[in-house]
Protein backbone atom coordinates (compact mmCIF):
# COMPACT_ATOMS: atom_id res chain seq x y z
CA UNK A 1 0.00 0.00 0.00
CA UNK A 2 1.45 3.35 -1.04
CA UNK A 3 1.69 6.25 1.44
CA UNK A 4 -1.10 7.97 -0.44
CA UNK A 5 -3.35 4.93 -0.17
CA UNK A 6 -2.50 4.60 3.50
CA UNK A 7 -3.35 8.25 3.95
CA UNK A 8 -6.68 7.74 2.24
CA UNK A 9 -7.42 4.69 4.34
CA UNK A 10 -6.86 6.82 7.44
CA UNK A 11 -9.08 9.56 6.07
CA UNK A 12 -11.83 7.06 5.33
CA UNK A 13 -11.50 5.50 8.76
CA UNK A 14 -11.85 8.95 10.33
CA UNK A 15 -14.80 9.69 8.07
CA UNK A 16 -16.45 6.49 9.14
CA UNK A 17 -16.15 7.72 12.68
CA UNK A 18 -18.11 10.82 11.71
CA UNK A 19 -15.28 13.19 10.77
CA UNK A 20 -16.79 15.34 8.03
CA UNK A 21 -13.54 17.20 7.40
CA UNK A 22 -11.77 13.93 6.59
CA UNK A 23 -14.52 13.02 4.16
CA UNK A 24 -14.36 16.47 2.61
CA UNK A 25 -10.71 15.80 1.80
CA UNK A 26 -11.66 12.48 0.21
CA UNK A 27 -14.26 14.33 -1.86
CA UNK A 28 -11.63 16.85 -2.93
CA UNK A 29 -9.40 14.06 -4.19
CA UNK A 30 -12.00 12.24 -6.24
CA UNK A 31 -14.48 14.91 -7.27
CA UNK A 32 -13.15 15.36 -10.81
CA UNK A 33 -13.30 11.69 -11.61
CA UNK A 34 -16.78 11.25 -10.19
CA UNK A 35 -18.04 14.36 -11.92
CA UNK A 36 -16.45 13.16 -15.18
CA UNK A 37 -18.20 9.80 -15.02
CA UNK A 38 -21.51 11.50 -14.34
CA UNK A 39 -21.06 14.12 -17.05
CA UNK A 40 -20.15 11.55 -19.68
CA UNK A 41 -23.37 9.69 -18.97
CA UNK A 42 -25.88 12.46 -18.30
CA UNK A 43 -24.31 15.04 -20.63
CA UNK A 44 -25.41 18.05 -18.64
CA UNK A 45 -23.35 19.97 -16.12
CA UNK A 46 -26.28 20.70 -13.81
CA UNK A 47 -27.35 17.06 -13.67
CA UNK A 48 -23.77 15.82 -13.39
CA UNK A 49 -23.29 18.17 -10.46
CA UNK A 50 -26.32 16.72 -8.73
CA UNK A 51 -25.26 13.17 -9.52
CA UNK A 52 -21.73 13.74 -8.23
CA UNK A 53 -22.96 15.33 -5.02
CA UNK A 54 -25.49 12.61 -4.45
CA UNK A 55 -22.88 9.93 -5.10
CA UNK A 56 -20.67 11.32 -2.35
CA UNK A 57 -23.59 11.77 0.01
CA UNK A 58 -24.61 8.15 -0.50
CA UNK A 59 -21.04 6.98 -0.13
CA UNK A 60 -20.86 8.83 3.18
CA UNK A 61 -24.03 7.20 4.37
CA UNK A 62 -22.77 3.77 3.35
CA UNK A 63 -19.28 4.10 4.76
CA UNK A 64 -20.16 1.64 7.50
CA UNK A 65 -20.47 -1.03 4.85
CA UNK A 66 -17.34 -0.03 2.92
CA UNK A 67 -14.04 -1.76 3.56
CA UNK A 68 -11.79 1.27 3.94
CA UNK A 69 -8.66 -0.53 2.77
CA UNK A 70 -10.22 -0.96 -0.66
CA UNK A 71 -9.92 1.77 -3.30
CA UNK A 72 -12.59 4.38 -2.76
CA UNK A 73 -12.67 5.88 -6.25
CA UNK A 74 -14.07 2.88 -8.16
CA UNK A 75 -16.73 2.44 -5.52
CA UNK A 76 -17.99 6.01 -5.59
CA UNK A 77 -17.73 6.05 -9.40
CA UNK A 78 -19.95 3.00 -9.53
CA UNK A 79 -22.46 4.78 -7.31
CA UNK A 80 -22.32 7.81 -9.59
CA UNK A 81 -22.75 5.69 -12.71
CA UNK A 82 -25.76 3.96 -11.24
CA UNK A 83 -27.34 7.27 -10.25
CA UNK A 84 -26.58 8.75 -13.65
CA UNK A 85 -28.16 5.88 -15.55
CA UNK A 86 -31.19 5.90 -13.30
CA UNK A 87 -31.56 9.60 -13.84
CA UNK A 88 -31.32 9.39 -17.61
CA UNK A 89 -33.85 6.57 -17.61
CA UNK A 90 -36.25 8.57 -15.46
CA UNK A 91 -39.15 10.33 -17.15
CA UNK A 92 -38.03 13.72 -15.91
CA UNK A 93 -34.63 13.46 -17.46
CA UNK A 94 -33.81 15.74 -20.30
CA UNK A 95 -30.48 15.30 -21.92
CA UNK A 96 -28.79 18.52 -22.81
CA UNK A 97 -26.13 18.52 -25.44
CA UNK A 98 -22.67 19.40 -24.32
CA UNK A 99 -22.56 22.48 -26.49
CA UNK A 100 -23.08 25.00 -23.73
CA UNK A 101 -19.50 24.68 -22.57
CA UNK A 102 -17.95 24.02 -25.91
CA UNK A 103 -15.94 27.21 -25.82
CA UNK A 104 -14.58 26.27 -22.43
CA UNK A 105 -13.54 22.79 -23.48
CA UNK A 106 -10.10 21.91 -22.28
CA UNK A 107 -7.31 22.16 -24.78
CA UNK A 108 -6.90 18.76 -26.38
CA UNK A 109 -3.44 19.66 -27.60
CA UNK A 110 -1.62 16.96 -25.68
CA UNK A 111 -4.18 14.21 -26.02
CA UNK A 112 -3.40 11.20 -28.15
CA UNK A 113 -6.57 11.70 -30.09
CA UNK A 114 -4.89 14.57 -31.83
CA UNK A 115 -2.78 12.12 -33.75
CA UNK A 116 -5.70 9.86 -34.54
CA UNK A 117 -8.76 11.89 -35.21
CA UNK A 118 -9.21 15.46 -36.13
CA UNK A 119 -11.66 17.92 -34.67
CA UNK A 120 -14.36 16.88 -37.09
CA UNK A 121 -14.10 13.29 -35.99
CA UNK A 122 -14.32 14.35 -32.36
CA UNK A 123 -17.48 16.19 -33.20
CA UNK A 124 -18.90 13.09 -34.86
CA UNK A 125 -17.89 10.91 -31.93
CA UNK A 126 -19.49 13.33 -29.51
CA UNK A 127 -22.72 13.20 -31.46
CA UNK A 128 -22.58 9.43 -31.72
CA UNK A 129 -22.07 9.08 -27.98
CA UNK A 130 -25.08 11.31 -27.44
CA UNK A 131 -27.18 9.05 -29.64
CA UNK A 132 -26.46 5.96 -27.55
CA UNK A 133 -28.96 4.87 -24.96
CA UNK A 134 -28.02 5.78 -21.39
CA UNK A 135 -27.31 2.13 -20.63
CA UNK A 136 -25.04 1.70 -23.63
CA UNK A 137 -23.26 4.96 -22.92
CA UNK A 138 -22.75 4.07 -19.28
CA UNK A 139 -21.29 0.69 -20.12
CA UNK A 140 -19.02 2.19 -22.75
CA UNK A 141 -17.82 4.99 -20.45
CA UNK A 142 -17.22 2.69 -17.50
CA UNK A 143 -15.26 0.30 -19.67
CA UNK A 144 -13.21 2.62 -21.83
CA UNK A 145 -12.67 5.58 -19.52
CA UNK A 146 -12.90 4.01 -16.09
CA UNK A 147 -11.45 0.71 -17.29
CA UNK A 148 -13.79 -1.30 -15.11
CA UNK A 149 -14.17 -5.03 -15.65
CA UNK A 150 -17.44 -6.44 -16.93
CA UNK A 151 -18.15 -7.75 -13.47
CA UNK A 152 -17.62 -4.34 -11.86
CA UNK A 153 -19.84 -2.68 -14.45
CA UNK A 154 -22.47 -5.34 -13.94
CA UNK A 155 -22.45 -4.70 -10.19
CA UNK A 156 -22.62 -0.94 -10.68
CA UNK A 157 -25.58 -1.08 -13.02
CA UNK A 158 -27.36 -4.08 -11.55
CA UNK A 159 -27.20 -6.22 -14.68
CA UNK A 160 -25.45 -9.46 -15.63
CA UNK A 161 -21.93 -9.54 -17.12
CA UNK A 162 -23.48 -11.01 -20.28
CA UNK A 163 -25.70 -7.95 -20.59
CA UNK A 164 -22.66 -5.74 -20.14
CA UNK A 165 -20.89 -7.59 -22.93
CA UNK A 166 -23.77 -7.29 -25.37
CA UNK A 167 -24.45 -3.63 -24.55
CA UNK A 168 -20.83 -2.80 -24.97
CA UNK A 169 -20.72 -4.59 -28.29
CA UNK A 170 -23.81 -2.74 -29.53
CA UNK A 171 -22.43 0.58 -28.34
CA UNK A 172 -19.16 -0.03 -30.17
CA UNK A 173 -20.97 -1.15 -33.30
CA UNK A 174 -23.02 1.99 -33.35
CA UNK A 175 -20.08 4.27 -32.65
CA UNK A 176 -17.94 2.47 -35.20
CA UNK A 177 -20.62 2.92 -37.87
CA UNK A 178 -20.74 6.65 -37.18
CA UNK A 179 -16.99 6.96 -37.20
CA UNK A 180 -16.23 4.51 -40.00
CA UNK A 181 -14.55 7.03 -42.31
CA UNK A 182 -12.25 8.20 -39.55
CA UNK A 183 -11.57 4.90 -37.85
CA UNK A 184 -10.07 3.34 -40.96
CA UNK A 185 -7.66 6.21 -41.20
CA UNK A 186 -6.95 6.10 -37.48
CA UNK A 187 -6.34 2.38 -37.53
CA UNK A 188 -3.92 2.78 -40.42
CA UNK A 189 -2.04 5.48 -38.52
CA UNK A 190 -1.95 3.40 -35.37
CA UNK A 191 -0.51 0.46 -37.21
CA UNK A 192 2.05 2.74 -38.86
CA UNK A 193 0.72 2.20 -42.34
CA UNK A 194 0.68 4.92 -44.95
CA UNK A 195 -2.62 6.64 -45.72
Amino acid sequence: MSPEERDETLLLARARGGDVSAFEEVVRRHQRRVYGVALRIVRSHAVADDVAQEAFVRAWRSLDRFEVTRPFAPWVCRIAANLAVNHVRSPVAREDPLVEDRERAVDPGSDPLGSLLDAEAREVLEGALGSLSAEQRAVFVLRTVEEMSYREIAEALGVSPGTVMSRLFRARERLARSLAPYLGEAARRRSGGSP
Partner: protein
Amino acid sequence: VSPHESERLSAYLDGELAPAERAAVETHLGTCAPCRARLAELGGLDEAARALPLPAAPPGYFESFPARVRARLEAKGRAPGPSRGRFAAAPPWRWPAWTWAVAAALFLAVVTPLTLFEGPGGRRVPPPPAPAVTAPRRGAPPEPAPLVAPPAREKVASGEPREAPLAPPPARARPPAPLAPRGAAPAEARSGEAKSADAMTAVRPATAAKAGAAATPMAKGPAAAPLERRGPQAAVEGFAEEGGEVESAYWRLAREEPTDAEGWRRAREAWRAFARAHPESPRADEARVRTIEAGMAAWRLSREEQDLDRAREDLAAYLGRPDARQADRARRALEPSERP
Protein backbone atom coordinates in the same frame (compact mmCIF):
# COMPACT_ATOMS: atom_id res chain seq x y z
CA VAL B 1 -16.85 -9.69 -39.99
CA SER B 2 -20.00 -11.31 -38.62
CA PRO B 3 -21.79 -9.82 -35.60
CA HIS B 4 -20.84 -12.88 -33.60
CA GLU B 5 -17.17 -12.47 -34.41
CA SER B 6 -17.41 -8.76 -33.78
CA GLU B 7 -18.91 -9.33 -30.34
CA ARG B 8 -16.13 -11.76 -29.51
CA LEU B 9 -13.58 -9.22 -30.73
CA SER B 10 -15.14 -6.61 -28.47
CA ALA B 11 -14.80 -8.89 -25.45
CA TYR B 12 -11.31 -9.95 -26.57
CA LEU B 13 -10.28 -6.30 -26.68
CA ASP B 14 -11.42 -5.96 -23.08
CA GLY B 15 -9.58 -9.10 -21.95
CA GLU B 16 -12.87 -10.62 -20.87
CA LEU B 17 -12.79 -13.90 -22.77
CA ALA B 18 -12.07 -17.25 -21.14
CA PRO B 19 -8.60 -18.59 -21.95
CA ALA B 20 -9.83 -21.16 -24.47
CA GLU B 21 -11.97 -18.62 -26.27
CA ARG B 22 -9.17 -16.09 -26.26
CA ALA B 23 -6.82 -18.61 -27.83
CA ALA B 24 -9.40 -19.36 -30.50
CA VAL B 25 -9.78 -15.69 -31.34
CA GLU B 26 -6.03 -15.25 -31.57
CA THR B 27 -5.76 -18.18 -33.90
CA HIS B 28 -8.49 -16.69 -36.05
CA LEU B 29 -6.87 -13.28 -36.07
CA GLY B 30 -3.71 -14.82 -37.43
CA THR B 31 -5.51 -15.77 -40.62
CA CYS B 32 -8.28 -13.17 -40.98
CA ALA B 33 -7.26 -9.71 -42.16
CA PRO B 34 -10.79 -8.20 -41.90
CA CYS B 35 -10.99 -9.24 -38.22
CA ARG B 36 -7.57 -7.75 -37.57
CA ALA B 37 -8.73 -4.51 -39.17
CA ARG B 38 -11.92 -4.63 -37.13
CA LEU B 39 -9.96 -5.10 -33.92
CA ALA B 40 -7.75 -2.15 -34.80
CA GLU B 41 -10.84 -0.03 -35.42
CA LEU B 42 -12.37 -0.96 -32.08
CA GLY B 43 -9.10 -0.16 -30.35
CA GLY B 44 -9.00 3.21 -32.10
CA LEU B 45 -12.56 3.89 -31.06
CA ASP B 46 -11.78 3.27 -27.40
CA GLU B 47 -8.70 5.40 -27.58
CA ALA B 48 -10.64 8.21 -29.22
CA ALA B 49 -13.36 8.04 -26.58
CA ARG B 50 -10.81 8.09 -23.77
CA ALA B 51 -9.14 11.12 -25.28
CA LEU B 52 -12.37 13.00 -25.90
CA PRO B 53 -12.05 16.16 -23.83
CA LEU B 54 -14.80 16.84 -21.38
CA PRO B 55 -16.26 20.31 -21.33
CA ALA B 56 -14.66 22.22 -18.50
CA ALA B 57 -16.74 22.74 -15.40
CA PRO B 58 -17.66 26.35 -14.62
CA PRO B 59 -14.88 28.38 -13.03
CA GLY B 60 -14.51 27.71 -9.34
CA TYR B 61 -16.72 24.65 -9.51
CA PHE B 62 -14.24 22.15 -8.08
CA GLU B 63 -13.00 24.64 -5.49
CA SER B 64 -16.44 24.85 -3.97
CA PHE B 65 -17.64 21.31 -4.60
CA PRO B 66 -16.27 19.68 -1.41
CA ALA B 67 -17.82 22.40 0.73
CA ARG B 68 -21.17 21.89 -0.94
CA VAL B 69 -21.06 18.17 -0.30
CA ARG B 70 -20.08 18.91 3.26
CA ALA B 71 -22.99 21.31 3.68
CA ARG B 72 -25.34 18.56 2.53
CA LEU B 73 -23.82 16.05 4.91
CA GLU B 74 -24.09 18.43 7.81
CA ALA B 75 -27.64 19.27 6.89
CA LYS B 76 -28.60 15.59 6.80
CA GLY B 77 -26.37 14.02 9.37
CA ARG B 78 -25.26 10.43 9.10
CA ALA B 79 -28.66 8.92 9.65
CA PRO B 80 -30.10 7.41 6.49
CA GLY B 81 -32.91 9.43 5.12
CA PRO B 82 -34.54 10.37 1.86
CA SER B 83 -32.52 12.45 -0.53
CA ARG B 84 -33.80 15.74 -1.72
CA GLY B 85 -34.20 17.28 -5.12
CA ARG B 86 -33.47 15.27 -8.25
CA PHE B 87 -32.86 12.06 -6.37
CA ALA B 88 -35.65 12.31 -3.89
CA ALA B 89 -37.42 9.05 -3.35
CA ALA B 90 -41.15 9.10 -3.86
CA PRO B 91 -42.78 9.98 -0.55
CA PRO B 92 -44.76 7.21 1.11
CA TRP B 93 -48.46 7.37 0.39
CA ARG B 94 -50.52 9.09 3.02
CA TRP B 95 -54.20 9.74 3.10
CA PRO B 96 -54.82 13.44 2.55
CA ALA B 97 -55.73 15.27 5.73
CA TRP B 98 -59.24 16.06 4.50
CA THR B 99 -60.10 12.36 4.27
CA TRP B 100 -59.70 12.07 8.02
CA ALA B 101 -61.98 15.02 8.50
CA VAL B 102 -64.57 13.45 6.21
CA ALA B 103 -64.28 10.17 8.09
CA ALA B 104 -64.77 11.98 11.38
CA ALA B 105 -67.82 13.78 10.01
CA LEU B 106 -69.35 10.54 8.76
CA PHE B 107 -68.67 8.88 12.07
CA LEU B 108 -70.35 11.69 13.94
CA ALA B 109 -73.27 11.76 11.52
CA VAL B 110 -73.94 8.10 12.24
CA VAL B 111 -73.07 7.90 15.92
CA THR B 112 -74.53 11.16 17.19
CA PRO B 113 -78.20 10.39 16.35
CA LEU B 114 -77.83 6.99 17.98
CA THR B 115 -76.62 8.58 21.18
CA LEU B 116 -79.70 10.79 21.24
CA PHE B 117 -82.09 7.83 21.47
CA GLU B 118 -83.46 7.20 24.88
CA GLY B 119 -81.78 4.45 26.75
CA PRO B 120 -83.62 1.50 28.28
CA GLY B 121 -84.25 3.39 31.49
CA GLY B 122 -85.84 6.34 29.73
CA ARG B 123 -82.66 8.33 30.30
CA ARG B 124 -81.50 10.51 27.39
CA VAL B 125 -77.87 9.95 26.64
CA PRO B 126 -75.99 13.23 26.36
CA PRO B 127 -74.36 13.96 23.04
CA PRO B 128 -70.62 13.63 22.83
CA PRO B 129 -68.51 16.73 23.12
CA ALA B 130 -68.05 18.83 20.01
CA PRO B 131 -65.54 17.32 17.58
CA ALA B 132 -62.07 18.73 17.61
CA VAL B 133 -61.90 18.68 13.84
CA THR B 134 -64.34 20.62 11.73
CA ALA B 135 -65.28 18.49 8.79
CA PRO B 136 -65.20 20.31 5.48
CA ARG B 137 -67.91 19.72 2.93
CA ARG B 138 -67.06 17.01 0.48
CA GLY B 139 -65.26 18.61 -2.41
CA ALA B 140 -64.72 21.81 -0.51
CA PRO B 141 -61.38 23.48 -1.17
CA PRO B 142 -58.75 22.91 1.44
CA GLU B 143 -58.23 25.49 4.07
CA PRO B 144 -55.91 28.27 3.06
CA ALA B 145 -52.40 27.37 4.03
CA PRO B 146 -50.88 29.13 6.96
CA LEU B 147 -48.13 31.52 6.10
CA VAL B 148 -45.31 29.39 7.37
CA ALA B 149 -44.31 26.29 9.20
CA PRO B 150 -45.68 23.40 7.14
CA PRO B 151 -44.67 20.87 9.79
CA ALA B 152 -46.98 22.51 12.32
CA ARG B 153 -49.72 22.56 9.72
CA GLU B 154 -49.37 18.84 9.28
CA LYS B 155 -49.73 18.25 12.96
CA VAL B 156 -52.95 20.22 13.10
CA ALA B 157 -54.35 18.51 10.05
CA SER B 158 -53.64 15.09 11.42
CA GLY B 159 -55.43 15.92 14.60
CA GLU B 160 -52.38 15.89 16.80
CA PRO B 161 -52.14 18.64 19.35
CA ARG B 162 -50.06 21.52 18.17
CA GLU B 163 -46.88 21.60 20.13
CA ALA B 164 -45.91 24.70 21.97
CA PRO B 165 -43.17 26.53 20.09
CA LEU B 166 -39.75 25.57 21.20
CA ALA B 167 -37.88 28.19 23.06
CA PRO B 168 -35.40 29.65 20.60
CA PRO B 169 -31.85 28.63 21.39
CA PRO B 170 -29.52 31.38 22.51
CA ALA B 171 -28.05 31.72 19.04
CA ARG B 172 -31.40 32.72 17.61
CA ALA B 173 -31.47 35.72 19.84
CA ARG B 174 -28.85 37.03 17.43
CA PRO B 175 -30.08 37.15 13.87
CA PRO B 176 -27.49 36.28 11.25
CA ALA B 177 -24.99 38.83 10.21
CA PRO B 178 -25.62 40.66 6.95
CA LEU B 179 -23.99 38.97 4.04
CA ALA B 180 -22.46 41.89 2.28
CA PRO B 181 -18.93 42.49 3.45
CA ARG B 182 -19.20 45.52 5.55
CA GLY B 183 -16.50 47.75 4.22
CA ALA B 184 -16.87 49.95 7.23
CA ALA B 185 -16.06 47.12 9.58
CA PRO B 186 -12.42 47.21 10.60
CA ALA B 187 -10.48 44.44 8.93
CA GLU B 188 -8.51 43.75 12.07
CA ALA B 189 -11.70 42.91 13.89
CA ARG B 190 -12.11 39.92 11.60
CA SER B 191 -8.49 39.03 11.17
CA GLY B 192 -8.65 36.12 13.55
CA GLU B 193 -11.45 34.39 11.77
CA ALA B 194 -10.82 31.04 10.21
CA LYS B 195 -10.66 31.08 6.44
CA SER B 196 -10.63 27.41 5.65
CA ALA B 197 -13.54 25.51 4.20
CA ASP B 198 -14.04 24.02 7.63
CA ALA B 199 -14.76 27.45 8.93
CA MET B 200 -17.80 27.61 6.69
CA THR B 201 -19.76 25.51 9.08
CA ALA B 202 -18.01 26.15 12.32
CA VAL B 203 -20.22 27.54 15.02
CA ARG B 204 -18.71 30.54 16.64
CA PRO B 205 -19.86 32.01 19.90
CA ALA B 206 -22.10 34.97 19.47
CA THR B 207 -20.94 38.21 20.93
CA ALA B 208 -23.04 41.04 22.19
CA ALA B 209 -21.44 43.42 19.73
CA LYS B 210 -22.30 41.21 16.79
CA ALA B 211 -25.82 40.76 18.03
CA GLY B 212 -26.45 44.48 17.89
CA ALA B 213 -24.84 44.94 14.49
CA ALA B 214 -26.71 42.15 12.81
CA ALA B 215 -30.27 42.72 13.83
CA THR B 216 -31.54 44.88 10.98
CA PRO B 217 -30.76 42.93 7.80
CA MET B 218 -32.38 39.73 8.94
CA ALA B 219 -35.50 41.47 10.13
CA LYS B 220 -35.87 42.79 6.59
CA GLY B 221 -35.01 39.44 5.12
CA PRO B 222 -37.35 37.56 2.84
CA ALA B 223 -38.03 34.66 5.10
CA ALA B 224 -38.94 37.06 7.83
CA ALA B 225 -41.25 39.18 5.71
CA PRO B 226 -44.40 37.07 5.81
CA LEU B 227 -43.84 36.37 9.45
CA GLU B 228 -43.74 40.02 10.27
CA ARG B 229 -47.40 40.17 9.41
CA ARG B 230 -47.98 37.88 12.36
CA GLY B 231 -45.87 39.96 14.66
CA PRO B 232 -42.25 39.63 15.69
CA GLN B 233 -42.91 36.98 18.30
CA ALA B 234 -44.73 34.83 15.76
CA ALA B 235 -41.72 35.18 13.51
CA VAL B 236 -39.46 33.69 16.13
CA GLU B 237 -41.95 30.99 16.93
CA GLY B 238 -42.51 30.10 13.31
CA PHE B 239 -38.89 29.30 12.78
CA ALA B 240 -38.53 27.71 16.16
CA GLU B 241 -41.22 25.22 15.23
CA GLU B 242 -39.07 24.00 12.41
CA GLY B 243 -36.25 23.20 14.77
CA GLY B 244 -33.86 20.41 14.03
CA GLU B 245 -31.03 20.06 11.63
CA VAL B 246 -32.29 22.44 8.98
CA GLU B 247 -32.40 25.27 11.43
CA SER B 248 -28.97 24.40 12.78
CA ALA B 249 -27.51 24.32 9.30
CA TYR B 250 -29.17 27.60 8.45
CA TRP B 251 -27.83 29.37 11.47
CA ARG B 252 -24.36 27.96 11.04
CA LEU B 253 -24.28 29.44 7.56
CA ALA B 254 -25.88 32.68 8.64
CA ARG B 255 -23.19 33.27 11.23
CA GLU B 256 -20.40 33.09 8.68
CA GLU B 257 -18.66 36.30 7.88
CA PRO B 258 -15.97 35.57 5.32
CA THR B 259 -13.24 38.11 4.91
CA ASP B 260 -12.05 37.31 1.40
CA ALA B 261 -13.50 36.54 -1.99
CA GLU B 262 -12.82 32.83 -1.74
CA GLY B 263 -14.64 32.68 1.57
CA TRP B 264 -17.66 34.39 0.01
CA ARG B 265 -17.57 31.97 -2.89
CA ARG B 266 -17.71 29.12 -0.43
CA ALA B 267 -20.56 30.88 1.32
CA ARG B 268 -22.35 31.29 -2.00
CA GLU B 269 -22.08 27.59 -2.76
CA ALA B 270 -23.03 26.62 0.77
CA TRP B 271 -26.21 28.73 0.50
CA ARG B 272 -26.92 27.20 -2.86
CA ALA B 273 -26.52 23.73 -1.43
CA PHE B 274 -28.77 24.63 1.48
CA ALA B 275 -31.53 25.88 -0.83
CA ARG B 276 -31.27 22.73 -2.92
CA ALA B 277 -31.24 20.44 0.05
CA HIS B 278 -34.23 22.11 1.69
CA PRO B 279 -36.39 23.45 -1.12
CA GLU B 280 -39.54 23.28 0.98
CA SER B 281 -38.07 24.98 4.00
CA PRO B 282 -39.26 28.50 4.84
CA ARG B 283 -35.55 29.30 4.79
CA ALA B 284 -35.08 28.28 1.16
CA ASP B 285 -36.05 31.64 -0.30
CA GLU B 286 -33.70 33.43 2.06
CA ALA B 287 -30.94 30.99 1.14
CA ARG B 288 -31.46 31.67 -2.57
CA VAL B 289 -31.16 35.41 -2.06
CA ARG B 290 -28.12 34.93 0.13
CA THR B 291 -26.58 32.87 -2.64
CA ILE B 292 -26.80 35.95 -4.85
CA GLU B 293 -25.61 38.29 -2.14
CA ALA B 294 -22.67 36.11 -1.25
CA GLY B 295 -21.73 35.96 -4.92
CA MET B 296 -21.79 39.73 -5.12
CA ALA B 297 -19.75 40.00 -1.95
CA ALA B 298 -17.16 37.77 -3.61
CA TRP B 299 -17.22 39.99 -6.67
CA ARG B 300 -16.82 43.18 -4.65
CA LEU B 301 -13.65 41.78 -3.16
CA SER B 302 -12.27 40.07 -6.25
CA ARG B 303 -13.68 42.17 -9.10
CA GLU B 304 -13.43 39.04 -11.19
CA GLU B 305 -15.85 38.83 -14.07
CA GLN B 306 -16.71 35.22 -13.38
CA ASP B 307 -18.05 36.12 -9.93
CA LEU B 308 -20.28 38.78 -11.44
CA ASP B 309 -21.44 36.44 -14.20
CA ARG B 310 -22.33 33.82 -11.65
CA ALA B 311 -24.26 36.34 -9.56
CA ARG B 312 -26.16 37.46 -12.66
CA GLU B 313 -27.00 33.86 -13.52
CA ASP B 314 -28.16 33.26 -9.97
CA LEU B 315 -30.29 36.42 -10.04
CA ALA B 316 -31.87 35.43 -13.34
CA ALA B 317 -32.60 31.95 -12.03
CA TYR B 318 -34.09 33.40 -8.86
CA LEU B 319 -36.28 35.94 -10.66
CA GLY B 320 -37.52 33.12 -12.87
CA ARG B 321 -38.89 31.25 -9.89
CA PRO B 322 -42.61 31.58 -9.32
CA ASP B 323 -42.02 31.46 -5.57
CA ALA B 324 -39.40 34.20 -5.43
CA ARG B 325 -40.49 36.41 -2.57
CA GLN B 326 -37.64 38.90 -2.46
CA ALA B 327 -37.16 39.98 -6.04
CA ASP B 328 -36.43 43.59 -5.09
CA ARG B 329 -33.82 42.64 -2.55
CA ALA B 330 -32.22 40.25 -5.01
CA ARG B 331 -32.11 42.94 -7.70
CA ARG B 332 -30.64 45.42 -5.26
CA ALA B 333 -27.82 43.00 -4.57
CA LEU B 334 -26.58 43.50 -8.12
CA GLU B 335 -26.93 47.26 -8.14
CA PRO B 336 -23.28 47.89 -7.26
CA SER B 337 -22.26 46.17 -10.49
CA GLU B 338 -24.30 48.66 -12.51
CA ARG B 339 -22.56 51.68 -11.11
CA PRO B 340 -19.71 53.06 -13.19
